[in-house]
């Protein structure tokens, strides 16, 4: 009984991986637009994407609960199309995590794109590269370090979330019970050995990932300038 249940750990990693992938797809165009736009809406968009940084997770979780519930327009539509609810489901967790970790993907990428600027893109255009071509062959490789940072931060931040997940997903074993909630539960039930085991795994994992990233950055500096 002292051995911790590892199911929530795998669920958490799966959630973090899917969320990070999803955020790569959503965050890249948002970051690109923010880095290059001259629109007046830029400040508004920046403020919105940064909101999850400052809002208490319970506030974000509460609004998500309201907007994803089957009684809401979005939640209702989802229920009628898929036959399942968004709240208290793994899918709902992905939606919530993506929103919650959005700034951790967008901000490093925006910084990287801004650092690259328009100059290399103009050079690419003068060499007959279309904007799409230039994005993939010039901007993306030049932003490699930004991507690495964004991916690591988004993944790590998703693993560490607690409040939003608890509000939106509840605590359903095998579906929405993530490792941070499990640790909380073990502590509440005074099962310190299990809590220790999970906490140690997370600690070692997080440290190893960060160490690997920093070491990689040192050994293979991105050639810029």
């Amino acid at each position, binding site marked *: 009984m002292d051995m911790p249940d590892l199911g929530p750990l795998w669920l958490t990693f799966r959630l973090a991986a899917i969320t990070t992938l999803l955020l790569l797809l959503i965050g890249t165009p948002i970051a690109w637009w923010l880095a290059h736009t001259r629109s007046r809406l830029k400040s508004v968009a920046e403020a919105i994407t940064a909101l999850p940084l400052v809002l208490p997770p319970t506030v974000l979780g509460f609004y998500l609960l309201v907007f994803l519930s089957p009684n809401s327009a979005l939640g209702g539509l989802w229920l009628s199309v898929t036959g399942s609810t968004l709240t208290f489901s793994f899918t709902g967790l992905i939606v919530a995590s993506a929103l919650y970790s959005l700034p951790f993907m967008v901000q490093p990428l925006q910084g990287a794109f801004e650092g690259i600027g328009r*100059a*290399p893109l*103009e*050079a*690419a*255009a*003068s*060499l*007959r*590269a*279309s*904007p799409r*071509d*230039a994005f993939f*062959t*010039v901007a993306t*490789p*030049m932003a*490699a370090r930004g991507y690495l940072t964004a991916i690591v931060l988004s993944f790590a931040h998703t693993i560490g979330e607690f409040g939003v997940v608890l509000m939106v997903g509840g605590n359903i074993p095998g579906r929405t019970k993530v490792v941070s909630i499990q640790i909380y539960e073990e502590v509440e039930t005074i099962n310190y050995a299990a809590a220790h085991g999970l906490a140690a795994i997370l600690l070692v994992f997080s440290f190893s990932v960060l160490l690997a990233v920093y070491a990689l950055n040192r050994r293979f500096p*991105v*050639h*810029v*300038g």
Partner: protein
Amino acid sequence: MSGDAMTDLSTDVRIRFPAFSLEVAHAFPGQGITALFGPSGCGKSTLLRIIAGFERGARGRISYGDETWLGARAFLPPHRRGVGYVFQDTRLFPHLTARGNLDYAHKRAGDVAARYSFDDVVDVLDIAPLFDRRATQLSGGERQRVAIGRTLLARPRLMLMDEPLAALDTRRKGEIMPYIGRLPDAFGLPVIYVTHALEEVTQLCDRIVALADGHVAAAGGVAETLERLDLANVQGRFEAGAMLTGRIAAQDTELYMSSVDLGTARIEVPQIAVPPGEEVRLRVRARDVSLALTRPEGLSIRNMLDARVLNIAPEAATAFAEVLLDVGGQHLRARVTRAAIAALELREGQSVIALIKAVSFDRQALPRDAPAPG
């Protein structure tokens, strides 16, 4: 001019920025090197960027042959214009090697017909030894050679160069300049060349478009345009001058002087190391030319030319005036005080003696077999 295969670039464009606006209408011929010349802030780089399609705020018309690049409702994106652009800061891609940068352009030009191959470009620019290096591992001159090669390999129809030598020291400039001079002949490529350095204009360019404050101040052949008095504002007072064309008549190897035959007169200049009979261009600054009514004796100045006054233009609010002279069919400019003009009672049509203190030398065309820099 035979206008058969040459395609002209015609521009009638304007752009407005908070502190600067530009309005230019000019047709660039589809051959040779045209200088876009003027002081910094005159709009020459902006015009080049408008031609390339980098300035989305530009309005007006740009057409290349029968293609419309910019119109009331038309905008051809930069990557479809087939325009090569050499930047002052080279903009080599930092994540690729020199070879990677060249391949990037070469691959994307795939189906464009060109008269030259990858190896031609690499040979002419002598960049094979640099292939494996990254941009950060190249010197300024090497970087610019790779950048020029990369642009050539995109097989452009027109080459735009934005002060490609400005970031280089004098020795590197001398290394790169012959390569640029060869572009029109070796690659059949017209060039529009932005610069604020007069010596680059006289050494490299066939034509000049002088910009001042966002407008075309003068345009035409290099020699005749530089002679025009109203260019003083563009060139800056002490740079104003004229160009004399002649042939080397004799070399004095003991005193290190060359004698240049101007047609009706000869002048002696510090030795120019080209064989007798070869054509040279001499640049004479207006401030180095003095005037006399009769041939003076006992002067250190050796060059005294018979001249006729064509025009006298006093400079507003200064003590000076610029005198345009005819010297055996060529033009010369002299910058003298207005007081001197009054004292000598100079008038248009009058015969005078032009005294030339110093002469600088520009080669008109760089030989094709100029030694490659090591």
